[in-house]
């Protein structure tokens, strides 16, 4: 154990797809119960990092330590189940995140059967009630198939499904960016509540600086697979160091803001 206070430690992480380097030499840590944001535009490699953390992609180089243990590729089923209790993920697209044939309850039940085998029917039911309360579901919605649920409700189910495993940290991969503004606010509030209640850690991946500000303590700014800047979220956004972070920050509309033409960032622009 290097540092007992961090739940995720990533160092020198690299991922190549053929000749293309999607993630290059990325290092960061997530403290227990902390909240880390990864910011970047499309092609920055932020989603690839998320997929490597949960074992959906195999890193080309570098190490991922979760809970003090190295994550080697090709784990046994038992090992993958243990890892599941460390790190869970909520994806972006509310429409493919649930099995269309599964009701909310049966989706949660399936997870509880796997991860809480000691619970009987009654125990699982009471746990499901807790989870449903936490994400704000009534009993009618819990018997519904995903196609009867709105985008925001589906994301709530995905969050409940991740929480059912009782992980130490949840990766939120653009989990609120496909939602309407009024729904996005509900989910952001929900996530903040959950964190204050359970001391779970978040790794929030987003292109939206305002969302990063609202939900994270520290953040990592990425471009073209590389880390440009790491620091306390408020400091990074209020006083950005790298040119790229400055550019991102200057592109967010707000009072008195006006868009500017940025010919210089395009190779073709004069």
């Amino acid at each position, binding site marked *: 154990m290097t540092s007992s206070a961090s739940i995720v430690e990533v160092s020198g992480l690299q991922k190549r797809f053929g000749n293309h380097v999607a993630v290059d030499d990325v290092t960061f840590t997530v403290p227990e119960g902390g909240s880390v944001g990864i910011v970047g535009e499309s092609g920055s490699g932020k989603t690839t990092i998320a997929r490597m953390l*949960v074992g959906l992609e195999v890193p080309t180089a570098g190490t991922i330590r979760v809970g003090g243990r190295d994550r080697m590729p090709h784990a046994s089923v038992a090992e993958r189940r*243990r890892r*599941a209790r460390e790190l869970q*993920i909520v*994806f972006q697209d509310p429409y493919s*995140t649930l099995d*269309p*044939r599964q009701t909310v309850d049966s989706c949660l039940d*399936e997870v509880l059967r796997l*991860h809480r085998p000691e619970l009987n029917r009654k125990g699982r039911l009471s746990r499901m009630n807790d989870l449903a309360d936490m994400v704000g579901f009534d009993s009618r919605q819990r018997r519904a198939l995903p196609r009867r649920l709105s985008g925001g409700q589906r994301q709530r189910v995905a969050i409940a499904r991740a929480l059912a495993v009782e992980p130490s940290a949840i990766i939120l991969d653009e989990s609120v960016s496909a939602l309407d503004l009024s729904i996005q606010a509900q989910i952001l509030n929900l996530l903040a509540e959950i964190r204050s209640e359970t001391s779970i850690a978040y790794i929030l991946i987003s292109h939206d600086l305002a969302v990063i500000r609202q939900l994270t303590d520290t953040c990592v700014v990425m471009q073209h697979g590389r880390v440009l800047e790491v620091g306390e979220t408020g400091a990074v956004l209020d006083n950005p160091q790298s040119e790229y972070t400055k550019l991102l920050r200057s592109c967010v509309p707000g009072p008195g803001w006006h868009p500017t033409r940025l010919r210089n960032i395009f190779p073709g622009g004069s």
Partner: protein
Amino acid sequence: MTALNTPIAPARVLRTIRPIPGLDVVGHVAVLLVILFACLAAFGPLIAPHDPNAVNLSLSYGGSDTEHPIGYDQQGRDIFSRLLHGARSSFLGPLIIVAAASTAGMTLAIVGAWRKGWIDATLAGILDSSLAFPGLLLAVMVVAIVGPGIQSTVIALSIAYTPYMARIVRSAAITEISKDYVAAARVQGFSALTICVRHVIPNIMPIVLGQAVLTVAWATVDIAGLSYLGLGIQPPAADWGIMLANGQTGVLQGYPMEAVSAGLCLIIAICSFSLLGERISRRGEAIAA
């Protein structure tokens, strides 16, 4: 005749049957016809009024009468009874072919789609190239080696239809496996087998089923064609393909009833299977999207 009335249930039973939601009128007709043909394949030989192989040369090309609604073929056999017997031999082969090809194709496709990498690439390559080789040709080559007969053609066509099945299932499985809920289940620690059996297969089942019903149609064409060419089922068995081959002589002499009746049976059967299969597939795709 009772034989004609049997598949049509009494009105009391009819009233208890509800329309299938989301299926149009044509689809319902197709379902009824498919059920009718299934009944014919199962009970046709039992309800046939005459021996399909009872030869009576004096009745050669005899016209219809009350006992023999379609008349007689060249050898004076009752065409109607031969049609009823033919239903079984015309559908049994295709059914076995579809069962075999669906099972093999689905297994190959899902393993490929799940494992990705070189296994899938090799599989995709083989599937793509095998598409260029019609099942008919493979069946003909197998017959060249082991001789004519229904077993050899069924085996050959089962192999030939496997890549078609696998290709459709593979693309459906790839779409399904790429969905986030499958990734979520992997992150949850479910085994590949559990995810495939509980989530992936049930979700692509409508597409598989639709393709299977369509394949019944095409396999029926191929089996009948092979029998027509003299490579499949052998005379004097009552089979629609054989009846067409025999009937061709009758056509030239101005007695088309045998060929026309067997041909119409084939067309209606193939139509109903393809209409039904198409509708199931379309529904499956709509659900998957």
